[in-house]
């Protein structure tokens, strides 16, 4: 096939895949709970097939910002050699120009990695790097907290940090349980509108973030969207529907991408009448934290819980 044509087809496939990830996303992780005890060689049954690691990796390339956060959380940070351009946390992670959405095999291979972690293999990276003898571990977007916990354990197994991965899972679990326990459950189904971007893309309660917010008794107004399921739980909501729904809370997960704030929301035509706006229940979130399923989900849940707390105790 013509080289240029092939490249353009490839980039088309990649961009549509990236769009699908950006708009839609949460696919089932398809991961099994690891059974080995962290010794090598090890075989891991991941979303992209069985991954075999002959020895403990010491030059990991992470092309997933969530995986980067998880790797550092489970004490495998020192084994990480390079992370992609969107892995901005923790700050000491060795950020490079690598792009997880359009991975360049040569550029990745140049780091001579002994393990590459991705959030989804849409471009045949596993096969291509496999030819070079470099194992690829795919940890796709989690749909539930349990799937996220499994990913910690899988990464722990792959890096020889299983004990610490288990500690981290226990820690995240207990922090979440603590937040949930200390947050008064809303009396009757409190609702929220969760904003992914200023054109009103949102989430249903069955997405990862929807389930997390469900822990403190909140329900998404997007659940009734017919397109909700077909769009992977991330439908674009109609403006008048949002206003008519008059949600109890508005969560802004577009504060960084699109500079949305409580003030910009209040200036939208018709929005000043919303209960959430007039009672100060517009909750700005960090987009980067909100779009990942890593350890900082605790921070996000805490922000949401505090807003519920304030509302319940009538401070605002």
């Amino acid at each position, binding site marked *: 096939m013509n080289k240029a044509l092939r490249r353009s087809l490839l980039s088309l496939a990649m961009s549509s895949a990236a769009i699908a990830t950006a708009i839609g996303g949460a696919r089932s992780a398809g991961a099994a709970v690891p059974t080995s005890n962290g010794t090598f060689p090890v075989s891991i049954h991941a979303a992209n097939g069985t991954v075999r690691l002959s020895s403990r990796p010491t030059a990991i390339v992470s092309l997933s910002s969530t995986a980067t956060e998880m790797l550092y959380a489970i004490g495998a940070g020192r084994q990480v050699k390079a992370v992609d351009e969107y892995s901005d946390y923790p700050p000491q992670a060795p950020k490079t120009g690598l*792009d997880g959405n*359009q991975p360049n095999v040569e550029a990745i291979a140049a780091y001579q990695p002994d393990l590459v972690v991705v959030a989804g293999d849409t471009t045949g990276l596993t096969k291509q790097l496999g030819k070079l003898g470099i194992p690829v571990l795919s940890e796709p977007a989690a749909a539930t907290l349990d799937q996220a916990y499994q990913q910690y354990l899988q990464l722990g197994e792959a890096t020889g940090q299983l004990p610490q991965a288990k500690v981290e899972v226990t820690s995240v679990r207990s922090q979440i349980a603590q937040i949930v326990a200390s947050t008064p459950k809303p009396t009757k189904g409190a609702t929220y509108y969760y904003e992914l971007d200023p054109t009103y893309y949102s989430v249903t309660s069955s997405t990862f973030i929807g389930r997390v917010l469900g822990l403190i008794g909140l329900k998404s107004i997007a659940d009734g969207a017919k397109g909700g399921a077909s769009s992977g739980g991330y*439908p674009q909501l109609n403006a008048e*529907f949002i206003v*008519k729904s008059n949600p109890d809370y508005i969560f802004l997960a577009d504060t960084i*991408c699109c500079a949305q704030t409580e003030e910009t929301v209040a200036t939208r*035509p018709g929005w000043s009448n919303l209960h959430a706006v007039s009672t100060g229940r517009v909750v700005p979130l960090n987009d980067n934290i909100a779009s990942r399923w890593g350890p900082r989900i605790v921070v996000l849940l805490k922000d949401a819980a505090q807003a519920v707390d304030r509302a319940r105790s009538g401070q605002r």
Partner: protein
Amino acid sequence: MSTTLPQRTRGHPLGAELGPVPMSLPRRVSVRVPVLVATALLLAAVLLGISIGPADVPILTVLGVFVSHLPLLHLHSGASRLDQAIIWQIRLPRVVLAGLVGAMLASGGASYQGVFRNPLADPYLLGVAAGAGLGATIVIVSGPHMTELLPLAAFIGAVGAVTVTYLVGANAGLRASGASIVLAGVAVAALLTAVQTYLQQEHSQDLQQVYAWILGSFNVATWSDVLLILPYVTLSAVVLLAHRRLLDVLRVGEDEAGSLGVHATRVRLTIVAAATLGTAAAVAVSGLIGFVGIIVAHTVRLTAGSSYRVVMPVSMIGGAAFLILADLVARTAQAPGEIPIGVVTAFVGAPFFLFVLCSKRAQQGVR
């Protein structure tokens, strides 16, 4: 520029003077009936558009809100503040904006088809879409604090692209057919699209925003969007309507038009400039909505006659009605979810157009 032309005189029997020409120019064109039909259609579309929506506001409440906004009356509708806001600040501007954009895309398409004597011409032919897309992409990837500049950047990109196309194409010979301008448009569009695609892939975290803009939507339409494009759309509409008879003359060919005393190049430039200005403004607030520019004008030709005295005003009114209805589908078919309006215009519009084409083809030429 056109006031000295004899063809402007009312009711000039153009067809009789030209004798047999490739396309049948009707001797007498009934303008009133098609305009009335299209206007009735537009009124129905507007009524449907404002009374139906995902928010389920009762029709009496909707009417009440309208009455309460009548000047001097000071009536209270009894509608809740929320319902008032939904009708007056969210639904109505959306209907009005869809109407303006539809009118502009349809009449822009009709104009381009006439000027370039090409039935496949649409308002994006000379690079409007590519230029607007590049302008919008530059703003989106430049960071979150620039988004207010998005319509301006898309507008500048669109107008800039067509300006370059015209300057290059008009100097390249092949004057009579306008083919060089069309070819220049293809090249300019390809170049700008390449830059745009490069930018969006380089900033893949912004891909969803770029993609959403390109698909086009009226979901965040406001009165300020309406006010923003109203001057351009009005100016464009006035110029295009004023040139509808000259477009009839251009249809017979540039040399023939010249022999009739029409300065074809100048007329063409004026029409292209007006159509581009209006289309660029429309695209700047709506994104790239395809298909409207092609099907509306052709549907009018197939059903009401091919003279631009009919095609221009009826496309304008019919385009407004069509896009208001398409947007109604976009916001209600999957309510409370949205469907990209470009999907609706093609999905509903294409079969309808094929139907009109098949049922009328035997009777009239397509151009």
